[in-house]
């Protein structure tokens, strides 16, 4: 029997103080937290509560690069619908996700993250 995935909420405002999400470097901080959860096998619900400003540069770094690291089916399984959002948050997020899928379309569909994890394990075995 497959165990249900544990769902965790990642609140952007807890990572980017003040809810002004305009820089790619802050997006990278959010990405690192999401990535950790995905690698742990958790299901992530991203909370957009109190986000007043948000650029595509931030979102490209925070979530767009997920599509370069994980296969789409892993992302669909690991990310729950967002919560605490306003319509503009989701509209901008959708544009970034669609663009990321297109951008990484030619990439091999093997998770870079999982691949590098397994390479480390192989090295330890030797």
């Amino acid at each position, binding site marked *: 029997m497959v165990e249900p995935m544990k769902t965790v909420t990642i609140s952007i405002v807890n990572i980017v103080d*003040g809810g*002004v999400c*305009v*820089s*790619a*470097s*802050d997006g990278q901080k959010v990405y690192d937290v999401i990535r950790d959860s995905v690698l742990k096998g958790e299901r992530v619900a991203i909370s957009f509560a109190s986000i007043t*400003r948000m*650029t*595509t*540069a931030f979102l*490209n*770094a925070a979530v*767009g*690069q997920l*599509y*370069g*690291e994980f296969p*789409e089916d892993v*992302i*669909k399984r690991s*990310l729950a*619908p*967002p919560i605490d*959002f*306003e*319509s*503009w948050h*989701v*509209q*901008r*997020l*959708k*544009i*970034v*996700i669609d*663009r*990321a899928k*297109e*951008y*990484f379309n030619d990439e091999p569909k093997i998770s870079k993250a999982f691949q590098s994890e397994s390479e480390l394990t192989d090295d330890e075995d030797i």
Partner: protein
Amino acid sequence: MPEQVSISMGTRRLVASSIGFASLARLHEKISEHTDKDIYIDCSDLVWMDAHLSAPLATIVDRSKLLGNQLQLTNLHPSIRLILQKNRLLKTKAKDTYGTTIQLTRFSLEEAVDFAHYTRHGLLQNKMPKMEKSLLSKFFETIDELFSNCSLHSKSPTKIIACGQFFPQSKELSFSISDGGRGIDGSLANAGITFDKTSEAIDWAMQSNNTSRHGDIPGGLGLKLFKDFIAKNNGSIKVVSNDGYWCQDGGDTEMNDISCGLPGTTVTLTINTADKKRYDMPLNPHSVSDLW
């Protein structure tokens, strides 16, 4: 004592148009010939200046300072001097009694958050227009994306400079962001994408999904996002990058190259603040559940 040089501003009216930007480009070309001098920019012929063009003018000054020059504006008409004191282009300050100026401010490439706070505070002044929430959100989205583009692509050796002006009679808000970097064509050339004309490079960058970015983080969304907004708002956006000029006025686009180049890229955005249209479209519930 450094040698002193006087250079004419070279125009009577400095406005945000291809002619106005060409005047600034000629000024930059003349100033760039000099190093380690005291340069006086003679403004005796100048009878009008769009205040927000202080941003590209300050970029020209900052680039020249990198060559060891010191610069001064001389023979300014009193009314122009006053507005340039209010918006802080000039070191001598004047109180902005009408509260219609978003003061000229310099930012490092990493200061996107400070820029966001600056624009919010600038629009909170009591004489600034009370815009509809969705219009204000769209305005912030646009200028945040502009700043982000400077941060990611310009490699500017000088700071990013921003400046804005509200015109109560026409209910227009104009805002300029300027950097002294490699320009849009320079950024694209660095990625191996070249064009015969600089204005064609700008036009390419303004199209959907086009980007010079490579690597793990996708790009290509910043500039195209606001073209539809400008058309719907009946506003305008003017992009000058090196010697290329690209303008969208409402739904119409114009592009041409100017005779010589400005340093880096300047984007001037003008919006109609009385616009009551909705820009936040209702969400389809399916788009949330099937987002990923």
